[in-house]
């Protein structure tokens, strides 16, 4: 049984620098995944993940265990993504089509060309819909739907009350529903078979 994040953080703080390698290995893919969904660019997501770990490493000595390490890490990564989005907005608007070109959308291979195309269209529509949400709602939707954080963890990562997280998520899902229905794709995803 491996050590928990909190035990590894404690070990790092006590001078066992190699414990940080374990934390990087454990969280890098998830942080990079979240950054990719925030920014829409693999290269930028990789940079953000690396920067987040560097920041965390430098600030580890002052990390107080009031929040979980993962929430703290997501907080750092989210702030880095916000900075990049802010800079991007002041420079130029990146078209959604352009984003779609840079990040390939992979859908599971399913029997039947029609199903496959439908899945790909749905994936693109979902991506466009998520990207068009206001920043506050998009962050919550991504952290909840794609990172599986609890409401409390999201609240800690974004430094807002849990009730705010739920309100933003409710509104975000409502917006997504409208946008997907508007494209005539809502409900295109296969309904999972009920458990036996």
């Amino acid at each position, binding site marked *: 049984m491996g050590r928990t994040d909190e035990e590894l953080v404690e070990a790092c703080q006590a001078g066992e*620098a190699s414990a940080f390698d374990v934390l990087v*290995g454990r969280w*890098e893919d998830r942080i990079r995944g979240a950054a990719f969904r925030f920014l829409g660019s693999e290269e930028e997501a990789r940079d953000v993940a690396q920067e987040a770990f560097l920041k965390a490493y430098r600030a580890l000595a002052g990390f107080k265990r009031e929040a979980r390490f993962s929430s703290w890490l997501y907080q750092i990564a989210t702030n880095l993504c916000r900075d990049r989005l802010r800079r991007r907005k002041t420079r130029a608007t990146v078209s959604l089509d352009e984003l779609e070109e840079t990040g390939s959308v992979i859908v599971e291979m399913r029997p039947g060309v029609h199903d496959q195309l439908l899945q790909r269209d749905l994936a693109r529509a979902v991506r466009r819909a998520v990207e068009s949400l206001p920043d506050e709602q998009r962050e919550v939707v991504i952290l909840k739907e794609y990172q599986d954080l609890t409401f409390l963890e999201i609240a800690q990562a974004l430094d807002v009350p849990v009730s705010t997280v739920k309100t933003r998520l409710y509104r975000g899902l409502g917006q997504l529903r409208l946008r997907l229905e508007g494209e005539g794709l*809502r409900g295109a995803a296969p309904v999972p078979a009920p458990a036996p």
Partner: protein
Amino acid sequence: MGCERVGDEGLRADMMDVLYGEADAAARARVDEHLEGCAACRGEMAALRGVRRDLRAWRLPVARPSFTPRGLYLPRWAAAAALLLLGFGSTLGVTGYASLRRSLAAQEARAADLERRHREEVRALEAKVARLPGASFDSATLLAGLDARIDERLRASESRQLGRVDVRLAGWQEQLDAQRRVDMARVAASLSYLDGRHGQQLARTNELMGYVLETSARKR
């Protein structure tokens, strides 16, 4: 017909808890009770579950295995910029150290100049005292005391400067270490990913071989 509690934030929060499986028994009971009598909210919950299913369609791109460690891969322009930055940083480090050494030498020169002037003043005072009737003056003791004070000041100044250099060097070293640790972890992650891919490929080849053997046996 819409819901009568459309603006009820508490109910919406409970619904979110139920939707994501984080509701306690009390919240679940509140939502169930409301849904039983509210067709609009029943429809909304079903629609939100559908949205959640749709959201799963957007998957992350599959990471491409690469023999270049991911953490070290840079486009050419970025690599050039990094080299430039590294060179600039090193130059700054070297010139910073050189300028510290220069400032130490300048301080030593100033101290020597000060000492020379003090000696002249002492000599002038000595001459003045010697001209006074019945006076005696131990100039050697005075000069030795002065020398000791000047040496002490020089040593203190030098140790301060060296201390600053050490702190700066330690800071740079720490930053390099941090970068190295993250890079090594990424290399390790890349290698383990490749290992996994290799294993999958082997399993798939075995499966294909089994299929071919089985088919040929059937034909025979």
